[in-house]
């Protein structure tokens, strides 16, 4: 591998970016940050990434879905793996489940925040294969 694997972290909470960045950098990945969905889309279109780690609730409740749909509809980007991380869950009134709603969620994996470091790395490695 001549070039480092590049991952984009999109989250409106700087602490979650900091936490996940630290974990991924320790594993040797190159990590970029985006704090809004538009920032994320601009970066994806400008730079080639190997993985997008995407928060659901940013400036809008469903901002993450907007980004995911834009990625899938873009010929050049549609194969970009997406891991969606969110604290929105069934318990807090969001009734979707990844197992059921994978088709329309347009993401490759879905997990509740915060992920333990080992689990984050495991999920990332699986998506990069």
């Amino acid at each position: 591998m001549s070039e480092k694997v590049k991952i984009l972290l999109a989250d409106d909470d700087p602490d979650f970016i900091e936490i996940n960045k630290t974990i991924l950098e320790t594993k040797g990945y190159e990590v970029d940050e985006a704090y809004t969905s538009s920032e994320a889309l601009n970066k994806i279109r400008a730079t080639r990434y190997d993985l997008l780690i995407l928060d659901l609730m940013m400036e809008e409740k469903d901002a993450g879905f907007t980004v995911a749909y834009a990625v899938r509809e873009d010929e050049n980007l549609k194969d970009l793996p997406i891991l969606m991380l969110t604290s929105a869950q069934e318990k807090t009134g969001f009734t979707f489940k990844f197992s059921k709603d994978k088709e329309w969620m347009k993401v490759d994996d879905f997990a509740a925040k915060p992920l333990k470091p080992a689990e984050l790395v495991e999920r990332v490695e699986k998506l990069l294969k």
Partner: protein
Amino acid sequence: MQEQEVKILIVDDDEISRVGCERILEMSDYHVDLAENGVEGLEKIKSEGYDLVVTDLMMPKMGGMEFLQEIRKIDEKIIPIVITGYATIENAVDAVKMGAYDYLAKPFTPDEFRAKIERALEKRLLLLETEKLREERDKNILEHSIEKTRTFTIINCMSEGVIATNKSGHILLINPAAVKMFRIKHVNVIGKKVTGLTSNPDLENKISDALTRVTSKEVLERFEMTTPEGRVLQSNITPVINEKKECIGTVAVLIDITEDKKIEKVKTDFLNLVSHELKAPLGAIEGYLNLILDGITADQPEKEKNYIQKSKDRAHELLELVNDLLDLTRAEKKISSKLISPVDLSGVIKETFDFYKNEAKAKSIQFNIECPEKLPMIRGNAEELSRLFANLVSNAIKYTPEKGQVSLKAEKNNNQVYVYVKDTGIGMSREDAAKVFDEFYRAKNAVSQKISGTGLGLAIAKKIAEEHNGYIELESEPDKGSVFTVVLPVVDKSPAENNELLKRGIDGHKTNI
């Protein structure tokens, strides 16, 4: 009859016969009166009233037959017994035709006479009993009809809808509340199926269920249904069971819970939002602790210390959020249930200024106050009013860059006090300004992103102002700054009247002042 003395009238023109009869009857403890002829007899009947009349048929002045007819006109229940010297069947039959109950032929023995009298008295007793029963029945019918009217009035006044059906599910009764709930014309639905009331088939189905699956008198079905107009009705359907344990119909009671449902939805939405807001800082804290515990930053003590500091900040944020939530709940309580007193606003405003002086200075913000020595009294809760201004001033300082300006100004105008909190901060767009008083709404832009806050401060301020019969106005321009204006009504009354107002306030009446 047992308690009351039996009264018998003997009418006979023959004195010996008259007195003879009297003697026989007096031995049996009857009260006996005598009359010589029919005319005298009728007068006595009219004035005294008798159970029995014993009369001769052949009398002067008025014949026995005519006498019998006249008795019936006076009182149909008097039992006449005819005594006749000419024991012919014709006479007896004629007498009975004229209304005599029995007849006795002369000569007769005292025992025969007493036996006839006793039998006649039994008849009399029976007639009186029947009369009494009929009177009672008539009285019951009257009471029953009054009771029925009363029940109808109650049902018609109920705010709950009531629909009664027979066992085939046809409507027997529908009260005005139910008519209103389904927006129908009363006259059209009586005797029809409930399907005529609403296009929602639930009501019909549940009534059919209640009619067929009857096991007890308990409320069988409780369900919620939505009318085509979007009203939510909670419906309880009870089968009506007769003494043979058969279902003879149903009674449906409908309660309009549309408003309750709306409140429930707002509460659920808010709770979901709160849960999410609570989870974010907790998640961040857990994430940092995971890093430290897993030793990922073990070789970078500076970074690790930074993470501990950040965790502490988020924990503090969580604490503030919980405090704000408690304040919001408190502000939502009706003012009548709080400690109310005339509040010296200028004091509260000056205290707020003193409290935030240093914070402003630390950011090199020029912080000014312009407040009259004495402002009119405000009826309210001092602690809450203090919280209101504190929220506005702390926001102003928070969203104003270094070397900016924040000012706090108060004035009285037309029975109202105006308090302006003005800043030269980042301001906000019209869209943000429209939502900024909503719970957890925070304007999102590059600058505000880095400023921490619970998103509840302005929601609390707005609630407090409203609970004091006031309101908050906002003027804002992006990059120029914002002016928040709090408008509160003044208590323009003498101290005695104030006390009266306060008392009424505490009693739960909101007064316009």
